Structures are given as structure tokens and as C-alpha cells.
């Protein structure tokens, strides 16, 4: 293939001379030397080695020896130059160790809501909850009826709920879900108890966007249904969650409340220290909860005499705003890099 041992040896000699004469007094010409002769890809000696297979069989051994000797020589020259450059104060003066390091990649980041959502779901995951999801677009039955909302409940009003144009003259039936609770219904319809699930997701309110309200936000829903589940189990789970999320010494309050789909219903408050507040802080509501209403169990075909269960739901933005002292909810959806870079 046009390659002969003679040509190879001639080239080797030329290179050998060049190696001898090489000026190796700065880090950059040492590096240039390395690349030129023994660079992994296109170093001259490396290239010569690649020619060996093309030589007649009987010459290959000689060629190998010649090239190996050349490589050794180049390596030895390089090594001594390296050593010299390290020990020689004159060469060191040419390196400026205070120059900034070379940044080859931008820094990425997860959105704070993703971070908060995963912090929440991770805690429940460790407690044995599985993750479930459902659609953001829902029908009236899953979002309201099956969850024991009466026919004339104010949440069904156009004012609060975002309905979808179905191009049909009837009552609007499709909406953007107002809470993650329909995931409870979908899961209980599709599978058999026991259930122990956590459902993170986006929910909608038909609201004008201001610093304190947005037309959508994120929630995490929890559901446990089995034989023998009690409110004591619920309280236990929530307290353990809150301590894992807010810290072991968090001050908690569990108070009665009302939701159509749970009974008894309760809200969990945490005491939030505010140095400027006259009382030194105040109670902040962080989640709603309760025992699954028997009407809900019946709606999904479960016998409330046999099964009991609990459900809970919490917003994600509010606690995040509390934790990071964010005063304007819109920041989450404006995606200003100066905001995103802080998480």
C-alpha cells in the first residue's frame, strides 16, 4: 500500500532529530510537543504505528521496534521537560494559578416547585405511599359528584371553576380540575384496596393573576383506604410528615374543619415564628384532611362498613413561599433566571 519499511525508518529519523531539538521551556510548548508526537488520536508517532499493519509481514517486527524506541525517546524527553518545568521557578512564573477555572458548562437547576413536590412525595414514599397521577382536565363527576359535592355547591359556580367549551349546548361538564382529589376517585375506580397513594399535580382556579393568587397552582393529594384505618392513623401520618418536612421541633395544631369529601375533617396548622409579629408568630394552615366520607366510598363501589380510609391535600406554592420568604406567587411562573438560579 505504498508504505515501505525504508520510508518509515527515514521518517523516524527525521522525527528523532526534531525531538532532540525541541524547545520545551513553557507549559504550552510542552503540551504542543505531546500532541504533535504522541497524541492519542493524531500524534505523528501514533499515526506511524497505524501504518504497521500495512507493511509486509516480515518488516512489521522491525518497524515495531523502531517505532517503540522512538516513542520511548519522545516520552522520556517529555518527562524530563515536565520535571524541569515543575522544579524550575522560571517556568512556574509563566503559570497564573489565579486565573479563573475554565467553565465548560452552564449551571442547570430544577424549578423550586419540582423541588418542593419531590421533597413532599419523597417523605410519603418512605412511609410506603405509591405515586399516582390523573388528568388536569376533568369531568364533573370525578371532580365534584363522586366527591360528595352537593349539586348547588358554590365551587361548581362559573366564578371559581374554569370550564371547557365542549361546543354543546348543555350544562358545562368538563373543567380544569379544582383539586387533585379526582385522582382518589380514578384510582379507587381502577384498582382494589388497600390504597396508599400520593398524587402530585397541577390544579386550576378561575382567578385573576395578582401577587397573591394565580390561575393555577400545585397540590399533593394523599389517600389511604383499607380495613381498620382510623383518624388516629391519619393524624399520626400527618404529624410525622410535618416533622420530616418542617423539622422535628415544629409546633403543630390539628383542628376541626369541613370538606365535602371527608368526615370528620381537619386542618393541620404549623406555628410560624415571625419576630415582628406581636404574638411572636402565627398559625399557618398547611393542609386539609379527614376520613374519607362514606358517600365517596359508595360512589366508587366500596363498602364503607368494611373499608375506612383517610385523605389529605396540601398546596405546594404556599409552604414554599413561607419557607423562602417569597411574597409574590407570580415569580414561580415568570421563570426569571435570577429567581431560578437561587434554588
Amino acid at each position, binding site marked *: 500500500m505504498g508504505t515501505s519499511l525504508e520510508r518509515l525508518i527515514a521518517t523516524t529519523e527525521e522525527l528523532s532529530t526534531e525531538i532532540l531539538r525541541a524547545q520545551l521551556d513553557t507549559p504550552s510548548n510542552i503540551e504542543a510537543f505531546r500532541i504533535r508526537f504522541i497524541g492519542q488520536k493524531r500524534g505523528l508517532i501514533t499515526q506511524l504505528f497505524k501504518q504497521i499493519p500495512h507493511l509486509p509481514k516480515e518488516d512489521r517486527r522491525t518497524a515495531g521496534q523502531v517505532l517503540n524506541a522512538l516513542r520511548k525517546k519522545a516520552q522520556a524527553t517529555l518527562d524530563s521537560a515536565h520535571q524541569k518545568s515543575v522544579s524550575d521557578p522560571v517556568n512556574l512564573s509563566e503559570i497564573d494559578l489565579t486565573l479563573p477555572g475554565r467553565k465548560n458548562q452552564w449551571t442547570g437547576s430544577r424549578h423550586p416547585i419540582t423541588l418542593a413536590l419531590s421533597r413532599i412525595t419523597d417523605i410519603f414514599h418512605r412511609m410506603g405511599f405509591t405515586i399516582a397521577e390523573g388528568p388536569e382536565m376533568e369531568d364533573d363527576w370525578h371532580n365534584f359528584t363522586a366527591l360528595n359535592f352537593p349539586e348547588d355547591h358554590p365551587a361548581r359556580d362559573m366564578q371559581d371553576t374554569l370550564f371547557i367549551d365542549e361546543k354543546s349546548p348543555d350544562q358545562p361538564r368538563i373543567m380544569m380540575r379544582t383539586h387533585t382529589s379526582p385522582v382518589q376517585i380514578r384510582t379507587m375506580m381502577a384498582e382494589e384496596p388497600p390504597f396508599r397513594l400520593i398524587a402530585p399535580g397541577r390544579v386550576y382556579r378561575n382567578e385573576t393573576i395578582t401577587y397573591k393568587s394565580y390561575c393555577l397552582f400545585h397540590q399533593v393529594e394523599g389517600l389511604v383506604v383499607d380495613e381498620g384505618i382510623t383518624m388516629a392513623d391519619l393524624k399520626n401520618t400527618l404529624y410525622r410528615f410535618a416533622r420530616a418536612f418542617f423539622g422535628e421541633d415544629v409546633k403543630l395544631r390539628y383542628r376541626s374543619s369541613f370538606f365535602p369529601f371527608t368526615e370528620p375533617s381537619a386542618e393541620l396548622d404549623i406555628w410560624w415564628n415571625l419576630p415582628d409579629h406581636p404574638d411572636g408568630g402565627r398559625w399557618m394552615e398547611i393542609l386539609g384532611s379527614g376520613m374519607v366520607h362514606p358517600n365517596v366510598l359508595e360512589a366508587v363501589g366500596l363498602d364503607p362498613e368494611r373499608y375506612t380510609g383517610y385523605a389529605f391535600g396540601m398546596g405546594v406554592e404556599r409552604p414554599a413561599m413561607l419557607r423562602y420568604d417569597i411574597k409574590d406567587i407570580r415569580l414561580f411562573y415568570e421563570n426569571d433566571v435570577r429567581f431560578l*438560579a437561587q434554588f
Partner: protein
Amino acid sequence: MKISYNWLSEYVSHGLSIAELTDALTLSGLEVEHIEQHDLSLDGVLVGQVRSVHPHPDADRLQLCNVDLGDGTPVQIVCGAPNVAPDQRVPVATVGSRLTINEKTIRIKKTKIRGQVSMGMICAEDELGISEDHHGIMVLAGSSTIGEPLKEYLLREQGLAADTTLDLAITPNRPDAVCHFGVARDLSALQNVQVTFPDVPIPPSGSEASNHIDISIQCPDVCSRYTAIIVRDVTVGPSPVWLKQRLEAVGLRSINNIVDVTNFVMYECGQPLHAFDYDRIAQKKIIVRESAEGETFVTLDRKQHILEEGMILICDGKEPVAIGGIMGGQNSEVGNTTTNILIESAWFDPTRIRRSSKVLGISTDASYRFERGVDPQRQPWAAMRTAMLIAELAGGKIVPGMVDMYPTPKPLATVDLRISRIRTILGIEIEHRRILQILESLGFAPRETAEGLVSCIIPTYRPDVNLEIDLIEEVARIHGLENIDLPEHTSLQLSAPRPRPADLLREHAHIHLTGHGFREIYTNSLLPDEVARQFSQAVLDSDDPPARTLNAVSRSMATLRPSLLPGMLMAMQRNANHSQRVLRFYEFGHVFHHSKRAAAFIENFSEYDVLLVGISGAIRPTNWDQDHQVADFFDLKGEVCQLLDALQFNALRMQPSYTATELTDYHITFYSGRTHIGVLAKLSGAIQEFFDLPDPVFFAEFNWTRLLLLHEKNPSQTYTRISPFPEMERDLSVSVDKSQAVGPMISTLRKVGQPLLRNVDVFDVYTGNQIPTDKKSIAFALRFGGNRTLRDEEIDRIINAIVNAFSEQFGATLRS
């Protein structure tokens, strides 16, 4: 809903401080949202006696009063009130005292008013914070002592004391709790003490009253009860201080003694009342009917309303006089000259009132209560209580009897409660006796009908209680959820759920993308309709229209996003406006559109997960030895292919297109088999300009739901043994026509190189004066390996085969 601490304490001696009361109510379900203290800051305000009154020599409206403050030296005070007169006992803010007027604190000083010395101030009620009355100075009764602190007098004579208002958040299930009685009842159960409500003798229906008013209900479905009582010969005037203070504590303004009493009784027992001027009721008839479309009515506040069909109208013999449950009319309003009063106490349908209130845009204390549902048995009591208070305060005479129209009395319901069920639900043991106590205090009249079975009669003020679980909730909230001890151990079934592949895959993508310098963004799912339509084909492989909303509050949120792209472009625009040079974003989110295909969730609509990745601007941070370089298509293509590789989607087919669309200059479509998976594109210059972006934008949008399906079909990964034998590298440089695409050449390489070819890189694409102008040179770096030592001959054979295939398929020639 506001309640007064002092007022509440009249019905139940709870023995709780304000802080304790706040806690007790909040924990049991009546959340105290706000506390407001009303101090009587009357230090230095004394009872004085006016000795004499002389006109001010230099001011027409002012008078010089000589006032005795009980210390033997009467002082001169300048007063502008028209009603000041000799011998009156009056409150005097003495020199050095402080008053809070209109939230401003004023210090009373010795002063000169138009040249005359004034040693203090004679006060009106509003200046003392007793009421909002500013008609004139407050005149005290003769039982006061000259020189005594006003505070002592007020407490002794008028029961007036500092008070605290608790503002409660009432949940929709508690229509009974929108009044002091309801809160008192909860409190009696919480503290296990008795409640004492005022004793009101309820007159029999009929009697003389029925001769003076004729009532007919034409719509008993929405007005199931209407009770009326008449009070004659009243004198309309200001209310006494105690009544004014009660109303002020719950945030109401005093109007006159008649209206004030109706408001007082409403806040006392929860029943809204209306007082008509009896003499303005035509033909002495009350007809309750539903409105017809387009009727008009002028309410008390002088506003004219056009009514919808089906609002409840209270009419006299001639015309409507009130919108039932919402507001009375101007035509029958009680005024200063009114002498005879007709008191209305009725039950209106909650749903109907709610709708009317919303349509009319009027929300009143009455509508707030009717919407929630008032007690259908409270009407006679409330009417008589009102009549008695009016008779007492306005000096009238109650016409004996009443008219009580209640055509279909609501039957009392009974609900059984299994004591054992309480434990089943709550997981704690509550003492049997305490359970019965709670139910008794709340009015459920519990009766043990069998071992462990309690039968309760549901009072009409608790329409929310229908089931056993409702009773359990009552027991739970009064017993206190705080008293549920946390178990140390639970009997939960042991489970360590497997992470879902979907979550693992997404997590992997997050790690990869953030590691590659992308920032995750969250954008609005709602877009202006025209934007949604414009971007509807960014990722879709169909022309299904986007999903519009029916009732969005603003045009900018009219339609659900069919693509994440517009949201990202807005985020890029925002950041570019703030001089951010590097825009590298990704977002996971749902997109929506109409669809005729079989729906996963909602018929006629499609919703699925999408991943969008986009870049614009500098590809890497500024370094001291590298040039600034703006990202191009291949930067994103590299990122995307690395991501797909990392997630093991290695069988996707890429289909390039050099045709510009409205959105893109050129793009690559990703397929799995024939299934559309996503696109990778350069955004069109026009759209880039529209969003004011300085550098070209490249984006890739993937149907994540479909990728997930592929992922789930991927065979589970096993380890491939690492070959102990060396790999061999070869470079191959060929010359082809300039127009020849490299992609197909790589495919050919891969195919022909089987099974030893391990990797292909393109390390150079060259055009220039070394080669003919219509040619380009492409250099491939090839890596071969196998489970044995490869021989040069076999690699040579493969290279030869590749060169032949290249020559055949692409007219390529080998460059030496």
C-alpha cells in the same frame, strides 16, 4: 362572621379568657380568623355638671360652659354642640386626658378658642368610642355622680365595658353557627356547661294579629314559612348605648331603634328579620311570590334592580315591597315618622337566595344567613323577641297573636349512632358518658335505644347532620382532635412500593438536563386563544383544534396550551429583556387539544405529557482562552441525542425537513416506527423577532407520554460483558458531492460495519481549496472490537466493503 365576647358570655358562663376562647373555638371548627379589641380608653374622662351656658362673644356657634367637675372649682369649657344646656350631666375629657377619634389619638390641653379659655372638652358618643353617634354631646342620667370617672358610670348604668370582637370563619356545613346562640351552644358542649337563652313567650298563631294582616305564600317551595307580628305606636329614635355597642362589636352601624333590634336579634339567634312600615303596606296584605323576568324594584339603598325570573318577592296588595331574603324596598322602609311596624321572620330556600344574591350583586347579612339555611323553627321566636325588644326600646304595643304561615312543617329526622363506630373511625376510646353529654349539649337529644346504640333527634338548626358519620364528627370535634394520641405503633400493612418507571425516567431526565446546564421552568397552561392556535402544530402531528375555556377571567388565559413552546418563548423574552445572554430551558407539562381518537380520560379531548427543551445564546460561559460562541442547531441536536441516548431511546428514526413552516425554518421529526414522537427545530426568524430574542432559538418538543410507553416496552437492561480484547481505531476520509447528506452515510457505515463496528464519529467535514469546489471531504473515526483479538485483514475487509458501499450509494471516493 363577627361575635362579641361580652355578648356571647351573656348566654354561657364559659369562664374562658379571650385567648382560651379563641383556641377552644378554633380547634373545634369555628376558626377565629381575627381578634379586635375595643377598649374604652376613657382615663381622665369625668362626669361633669353644666352650671351655666353663655354665648361665645366672638363665635356664633360656640358657647361658654361653666362646668362643675366635683372638685369645688368649676372650669370654663368652650362647646359647639347645639344640645348643651344648663344642669346637664355630661362627659368631660379633662386637661391631660387622651381620646381616640377616627383612629387618631388627641391629647386634651388647656387652650384658647377665639380668645376664650377652654379647660377640656364636652364629648359626643363617637368621641368616646361608645358609638358612631355625633348628633350632639352625650347627656348622662341623674344617677351619675359629679366627678366620678365616666367608665364607672357606663359600666354601672349601661353595662358598657371594653369588649373583644372575634371574627369567625364559618364553614358551609355550619348554618347554625352564624349567630351568638350557635357559638354559645358549641361552647356549652366544649366546656360542659349550661346555656341560657332569653325566655320568649311565643304567642299563638292567629288571634288579633290575623285581623290586621293577611299573608299568602304562592311559592311554598322557596318560602316554606312566613311569620309576622305587628307592633303599634312606636317612636322611632336612636338606640340605647348598650344596643349600639353590641352592634358595633359585630361591625354594624346603628341606624335607629327599630332596624337595630332586627339586626341584634339576627346576630343573636341567626334568623334575619325585616321591619316594614305597616302603614305603607297596601291593603294590609303580604303576598310571597316569584318574580317574573324583567320586573324592576328599588331597594333600600335607592338602587333600581332589574329582576330575573324566580327571585322571591314580598309584595303588598299593590306592588313588591322587598326582595325576600336579600333586601327591603324603599317603598316600605321604616323612617322617622313610622309608628306601626310589621315584623317579618321567614324561611327562604338557600339555593334560590344564593342565585338571586349573585345575579343582583347584593350580599347582605340576611342573604348570607339564608344562603346557608336558617332554622325553620326559629321564625316565631325571632319575631316575638324582636317585637318585645321594639316595644321595650321604642315604646310600642305588640298586637296580640301573630300570623305564622307554615304550610308543610318539616319533620324531625332521627339518626342512629353506634358507639363502637366512633372507635372504628377515630381510633380512640371516648368515655360513654362524655359522648352523650356532647350530643345532649349540641341539641341532639340522645337516647340509648339498645346496648351501644344511641338514637338522636336532629334539631332543625343542623340540616348538615343526616348520617351517623355526621354525629361522629360532632363528637370528634367537641372531644377535640388534639386529644387523639399518636400511636407509637400502627398496624399498617407493610409495603415498600416499587418506584414507577415513569418517575424513574423523569428523574433521570431531570438529572441529565440540569447536569447539562438547563434550567427547569414552569409556565402557564393558559394562553391567549390566537397564540394557542398559532402554536397548535408545534409538536402535534394532527390539526386538531386547541381546547378553549368557557369562562376565563381574562382573554390572555382563554385557551389551554397545545404546546409548551409559547410559554418558553415568553420566558426567554422576559429574560432577554433583563439582559440574560444564556437561555437554556426545559419544561415538563401537560398539553391539551380536541381529539376524535379514543380518549384516555375525557371524551373528545386529548391530554398528554410533553418535554420541551430549548436553547438560545451562548453555548458556554465566557472563558479567558475561548471565543464567545452562539448556539446553533447542532448544539441542541447534540444535547437531545445525548439525552435520548442516556434514557435508552436508541431506536428512534429522525426525518429531516428543509421546508420552512410558520413556526420553524427547518426541523427534524422523531418517529418510533410510524408513531410521531417529537420535533427538533430552529424557530423561524419571524417568531424569534416577534419575541424580541437577540439570538436564534432552537427547541425540541417530545410527546413524553409516548416516550414513556416506549420506555415501558424496553426490555429490562442486562449487563454486557466487557471485552478483554483491545479495540482498533481506523480513520476513513472520503470525498463526496457537496449536497450529499452525512446521515445516510453513517447508517450505511453502521450496517456494513456489523458486527465489529463499535462506534462512529465524524471528526471533520471539509470544503475548500484542497478539493474540487463541488465536493466535500468527510472524515470518520471508526472503532472496532470483538470478543477476540481482531486481525488487520478482517478490518481491512470491512473498510473495503464500506468504501465500496460508499462509492456505490453516494459516489464517494477515498481520500489518501
